[in-house]
């Protein structure tokens, strides 16, 4: 236990919604003695334990790895997707960033393409369908090639890796005033089109992934840059610019 460890009291305002068709509204809860060493999700665990003991319905929220790599978790905390810390997923956000007596407002990711299933859980299947449209390579790769058989400049590999860091959590969509998924799609298109293995299908990929994205009802990007600011993996909007180039090239040439 760290020296700075202390306990805080919190007021929570959480969006509660029975199912996808229910109206939903905010409920208020208070929690005492929350350790600042807890993660945000652990704090919600404590709340859920309390609610269960009292015979109430626990707050439903998505999570899996709890180490910031799977992209399952996510909610809007005090108006910011994944909470106030930059480049941090909700599961990696710690309670030391809050003060005793704080009121924390917790809302689900909002977008027409992300219908709320229950409480803080939203259906992000739309992102999966964008991936299914072309976020892969279908060339035969054969046996394991020698590591250095395909030469890739280090700078290019780094750019591809930066784009590949996207965990598909959907915070970009949730934070965008237009509910646009262009940072996600841009990252996925970039990651593959930068590398020789992905170049073979770059044209079809750009066309079909953008078409799939539009079909899901995501909004149109107007370059607000909110996505980049909340992205837990720090994905740059340079990837959206690259997608724009890829799409135009694929459409015209």
């Amino acid at each position, binding site marked *: 236990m760290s020296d700075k460890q202390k306990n805080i009291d919190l007021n929570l305002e959480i969006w509660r919604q029975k199912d996808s068709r229910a109206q939903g509204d905010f409920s208020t809860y208070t929690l005492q003695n929350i350790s600042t060493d807890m993660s945000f999700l652990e704090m919600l665990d404590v709340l859920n334990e309390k609610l269960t003991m009292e015979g109430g319905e626990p707050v439903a929220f998505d999570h899996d790895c709890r180490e910031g790599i799977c992209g399952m978790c996510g909610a809007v905390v005090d108006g910011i997707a994944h909470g106030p810390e930059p480049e941090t997923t909700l599961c990696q956000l710690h309670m030391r960033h809050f003060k005793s007596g704080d009121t924390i407002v917790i809302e689900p990711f909002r977008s027409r393409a992300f219908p709320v299933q229950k409480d803080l859980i939203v259906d992000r299947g739309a992102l999966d369908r964008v991936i299914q449209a072309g976020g892969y390579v279908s060339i035969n790769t054969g046996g394991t090639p020698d590591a250095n058989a395909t030469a890739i400049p280090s700078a290019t590999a780094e750019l591809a890796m930066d784009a590949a860091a996207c965990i598909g959590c959907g915070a970009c969509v949730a934070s965008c005033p237009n*509910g646009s998924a262009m940072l996600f799609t841009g990252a996925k298109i970039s990651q593959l089109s930068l590398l020789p293995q992905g170049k073979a299908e770059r044209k079809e990929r750009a066309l079909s992934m*953008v078409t799939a994205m539009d079909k899901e009802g995501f909004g*149109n990007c107007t*370059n607000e840059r909110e996505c980049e600011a909340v992205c837990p993996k720090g994905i740059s909007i340079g990837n959206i*610019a690259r997608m724009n180039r890829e799409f*135009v090239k694929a459409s015209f040439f």
Partner: protein
Amino acid sequence: MWFLHFIQSSIGKKWIMALSGCFLILFLCSHAAGNATLFVGVSLFQAYADQLHSHPLIVAVFSSGLLLIFALHIVTGILLTLQNKKARNRGYKVQKRAKIRANSQASATMIYSGLFMLLFVVLHTAAVSFGDHASIGKTIAEMFSSFAISIFYIIAFMVLALHLSHGFWSMLQTFGVNHPEYNGLIHALTFIVPVFFLLLFSSLPLLFLFH
């Protein structure tokens, strides 16, 4: 077919906004160059206007082209605003920007600053472009000697600068111009371009007001 598909896509619509915006900026440049004759004197400006209108074909081609580009920019802008309102179906209880930038206000209010520019353009063309060209110099001089009209023009130029402070950068981003090596320059231009047009255009009413 592929072209229809392109302009109907989200990226295609961004391109229409950016491309028409680019032409509108070029128009602003040529307009500012024409205005610059006023710094020398009303008579030179009148001579420039007379020269221009002695080529009715050029005037007709350019003004109808301009009208088309304007319409494209406005219609697509309104369409985007409506579609985007629908995509973000429900707001948050706590509305907050994750990162406040100097021009965050500009990006959030493009539709309003844009519609104000439309109002300005309608009034301005009604008063000047569709007025008597033979005495356009005199019209301008008379208009700007009124304090209220001058202030209205200066406010409109400020709104234009606000619009450009998001528009210019946004245009480059849409064209895919985003590179660590040039982002510093692009960032600087984001402020230089609107301020340049603001100073150039508002100096005219100020010139007449204090002359």
